[in-house]
C-alpha cells in the first residue's frame, strides 16, 4: 500500500512558495527535489512535467493542483509540497487559483504505484478539513503529521 506520508520529506515542503506563476512554481518544486538529491536529471523531469501540464489541467479545483509525471528521472515515488498564499493559476476547471500544490514523480515503469499515489492524494485533498489544516500548518513537520493522520 502506497503511503503519501512516506513519499514526502520535511525538506520537500515549502510553506511559502516564492514563484507566482504555474511554470515558475513547478520549477521551484522541481529544484527542491533536485537539491534533496532525489532527481538526477532535472531537465528531463521538468520536460516530462511540463508536457503533461501543457496538455491538461492538473489543477483539480478546490484550490488544489497536482502536477505529476512518470519519468525516467525518478527511481522511486517522490513528492514535494508547496503552498502559495496568493494562489497560482493552474487552469483549473473551477477557475480558482491553486494554493496547495503537490508535485508527484514516479518511475516510468511503475504505473500502478503512480496511479495509486495520485488517487490517494486526491482523496485526501478532496476533504475540506484536510485542505484547511494544510493551509494553516505552521511547519513542515505539521504538514507531515496531517498527511500521516489522513492515511
Amino acid at each position: 500500500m502506497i503511503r503519501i506520508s512516506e513519499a514526502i520529506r520535511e525538506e520537500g515542503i515549502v510553506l511559502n512558495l516564492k514563484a507566482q506563476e504555474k511554470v515558475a512554481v513547478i520549477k521551484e518544486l522541481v529544484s527542491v527535489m533536485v537539491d534533496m538529491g532525489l532527481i538526477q536529471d532535472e531537465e528531463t523531469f521538468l520536460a516530462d512535467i511540463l508536457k503533461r501540464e501543457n496538455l491538461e489541467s492538473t489543477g483539480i479545483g478546490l484550490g488544489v493542483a497536482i502536477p505529476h509525471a512518470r519519468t525516467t528521472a525518478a527511481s522511486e515515488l517522490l513528492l514535494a509540497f508547496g503552498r502559495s498564499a496568493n494562489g497560482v493559476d493552474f487552469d483549473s476547471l473551477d477557475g480558482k487559483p491553486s494554493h496547495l500544490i503537490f508535485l508527484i514523480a514516479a518511475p516510468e515503469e511503475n504505473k500502478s504505484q503512480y496511479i495509486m499515489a495520485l488517487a490517494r492524494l486526491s482523496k485526501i485533498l478532496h476533504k475540506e478539513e484536510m485542505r484547511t489544516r494544510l493551509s494553516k500548518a505552521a511547519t513542515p513537520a505539521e504538514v507531515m503529521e496531517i498527511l500521516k493522520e489522513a492515511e
Partner: protein
Amino acid sequence: MYRRLLCYVDAGETRLEELEGVLDLASQLQSRLIVLAVLPEESPDPSKEKKQERDILEDRTWNFLYEIEDVAFGRELKISLMLEEGKPEETIASVVKSYEVDLCATFPYKGLDAELLLQKLGSTPLLFFNQEGR
C-alpha cells in the same frame, strides 16, 4: 463546436476498454474531455463498516479516474477529472451548466435515470455508449 465533452462514469460498472469510443470522440472533436464520477452523499454519522465501504469506493473511483487520465495522456487528449457527491442526474446537469459543456456522453448504468437526465440536460446533447464503447 464541441469544446467541452463531459463523460459521466461509474467506476463500479465501467471497464477502461469501454471508454475507447468516448476517447476517440474527444480526439476527433478536439474537445477537452471532462470525466466525471459521482458518489452518493455520505451519511452524516456513518458506522465503521459504512466508513470503510466509503473509503474503498472513493479509492476505487479516484484510481479509475487516473487510469483514464493516463490513457488520455498517451493519446494527447486534453482531460480534466472530477469527483462529486450527490445524485448523478442532478450533478451531471449542474456540471454541464457550470462548466459550459457542449456535449455529454455516458453509458446505460443501472443507477442512472436516462429520461430524468435528458430532462435535466435541456438542450445539451447526450450520447449513450454501449458496453462495446460504441
